[in-house]
């Protein structure tokens, strides 16, 4: 009866949150929500717009021109040049941007076009909602491996094998969710070269680009060169690059549902048709809040970054205390750590048991693709108090069942 949705699953992240919400005194490191409230200066911008009486009506489908102008200026600061009038769409968060893009670029067999392009390559592990968004758009997710031993970098041999005439797009989440790894410039250019030859779109999801902690991770040992590289900085690639960004994480605005995408006019003029049919426009009050964020909240972003770096170091110290339970790669960006569960493969069982026995919610690694199996994702976007409490419970549990160091097999 429900042909399109029968193979689509509710994101396991949300499933874990749902289960966790039913358990009293639970500590959740599952969902990637910042512990901070939206900065005051952003709330003030929204209130000001509300009081001016300008938020009750739809905006233009592309978004408020003044917001798009601000976005253009912000992009230019990062070396990306896009026309606010024709090349930027304000969206209801990044997932709407991704879904609208996928609906635009995927050509399923039933489309009866001369060439079927229904495969979308995504890295395994990467963000759990990508496969479902691809399926919702009538496409087929194809996983390309990341190599854990190489700090979750790209397995190019595997990636090249997955590219074929049916490939419509490659999704790159950089910094990667859930691993926190950052793909260096050279690797991104290699992907771009392969995509350019085969006329494949690259969807760059860079929602964590402001939370980068190590310059060396970007192939930039010199601190002066600490600048996040995006393929959207290369003007010659603009026809194949569709970059999405969200204000949710960087400005602690997950509930405002606001983000944007940008690409060459040729692509954006098509994506906007889908965006229009999905949401008409992004929430207008959130668009005004976004102007406040982009114009005035740089200082707050700096504070968040410092805090997250401290929390990353904190959660890593806790993990170091459990050497017989977990091994992990220290994340260079984002606010997730993705430890491997030693001596146990079934991450879903591990996460469910952990929730039941310690009242700590984490996301099973299998949610992020086949290579994620045997891992769990922990968010250090939560407060120090939550991180300490969650890790204390986990440590206490393993110590109580198996002496000082514990073993994962006890779960």
């Amino acid at each position, binding site marked *: 009866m429900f042909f399109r949705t029968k193979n689509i699953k509710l994101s396991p992240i949300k499933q874990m949150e749902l289960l966790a919400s039913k358990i009293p005194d639970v500590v959740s490191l599952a969902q990637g929500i910042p512990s901070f409230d939206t900065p005051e200066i952003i709330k003030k911008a929204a209130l000001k717009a509300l009081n001016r*009486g300008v938020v009750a009506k739809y905006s233009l489908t592309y978004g*408020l*021109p*003044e917001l798009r102008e601000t976005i253009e200026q912000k992009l230019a600061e990062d070396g990306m*040049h*896009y026309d606010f009038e024709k090349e930027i769409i304000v969206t209801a968060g990044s997932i709407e941007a991704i879904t609208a893009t996928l609906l635009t670029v995927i050509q399923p067999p039933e489309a009866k076009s001369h060439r079927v392009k229904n495969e979308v390559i995504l890295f395994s592990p990467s963000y759990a909602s990508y496969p479902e968004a691809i399926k919702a758009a009538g496409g087929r997710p194809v996983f390309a491996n990341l190599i854990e031993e190489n700090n979750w970098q790209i397995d190019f041999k595997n990636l090249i094998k997955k590219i074929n005439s049916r490939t419509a797009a490659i999704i790159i989440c950089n910094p990667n969710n859930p691993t926190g790894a950052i793909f260096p410039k050279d690797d991104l250019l290699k992907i771009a070269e392969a995509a350019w030859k085969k006329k494949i779109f690259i969807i760059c999801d860079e929602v964590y680009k402001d939370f980068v902690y190590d310059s060396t991770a970007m192939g930039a040992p010199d601190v002066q060169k600490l600048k996040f590289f995006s393929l959207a900085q290369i*003007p*010659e690639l*603009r026809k194949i690059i569709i970059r999405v960004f969200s204000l949710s994480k960087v400005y602690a605005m997950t509930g405002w549902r606001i983000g944007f995408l940008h690409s060459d006019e040729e692509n954006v003029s098509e994506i906007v048709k889908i965006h229009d049919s999905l949401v008409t426009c992004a929430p207008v009050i959130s668009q005004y809040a976004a102007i406040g964020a982009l114009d*005035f909240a740089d200082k707050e972003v700096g504070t968040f970054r410092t805090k997250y770096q401290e929390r990353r170091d904190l959660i890593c110290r806790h993990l170091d205390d459990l050497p017989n339970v977990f091994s992990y790669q220290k994340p260079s960006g984002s606010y997730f750590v993705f430890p491997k569960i030693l001596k146990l493969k079934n991450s879903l069982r591990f996460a469910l048991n952990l929730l039941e026995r310690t009242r700590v919610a984490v996301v099973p690694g299998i949610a992020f693709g086949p290579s994620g199996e045997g891992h769990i994702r922990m968010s250090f976007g939560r407060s120090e108090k939550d991180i300490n409490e969650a890790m204390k419970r986990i440590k206490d549990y393993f110590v109580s069942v198996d002496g000082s160091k514990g073993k994962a097999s006890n779960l």
Partner: protein
Amino acid sequence: MNNFFKLIIQFFLKWCAKIYLWQIKPHIIVVAGTTGRHWIKEAAAEALKEKNFPVRTNRKNFNAEIGLPLSILDLPSGEGSFRRWLNVLYRAAGMVFRPNAPILKQFLVLEMAVDRPEGINYLLSIVKPNTLILTTVTMIYAENFENLDEIALEYKKLIKALRWNGLAILNFDDQRIKSLAAFSDKRVISCGFSGEADFQVKNIKKVSDGQEIKLQIYPSNQIRLIKTHRFGKHHVYAILVKEIIKESFQISAPDFFKQIRTEP
């Protein structure tokens, strides 16, 4: 920040900015219009820098009642903090009342934003333009106005406020801006795609890494080919303004400032 404190800040900053301007006598370029101000402002500043003129522009969107004097004084905002605002006011007073302050010879390129009728009067009570650049009149921030003509009337006041040797640079592709030319008794240079513009775009070609623009300057009929690495029509206007500024300020910086210091 409550309204009373806001009024005190506004009043104090206004007078500090006025005294500061009286002391340093900069050449003021005002960029106004409802869209495209940022890139025009950047283009004007770039043109002056290329000619080695000292130049300063607004910080971010500091372009209204409090932001404009902060831009003139080159001070940050106190945002929502009472203590930070006190510090801003202290620094503003220091800039104005310090003995033997160095006289900075410079251009100030300032954006001006108007969001309600008569709003421009307050800004003009702080600063009057030597050069005025008008971009467009559109519906952005128009909720307090009856119609677009009412916004244009605000810009008419800016044209009227130009100094005796002032220059107005007008976008002739916007009919309301174009019609303001009739109210100027100062020098007007027009630009745009319009066949009547002095700096006229003849052709634009989008290339992989930007845009190539062919423009013709009247009455000399001079043709210029310019490339920009930015995309969009608004950057074409920015280029036109840059060329006009380069053309209009031909003399050296010391000679220029000597000249404006002796003006009546």
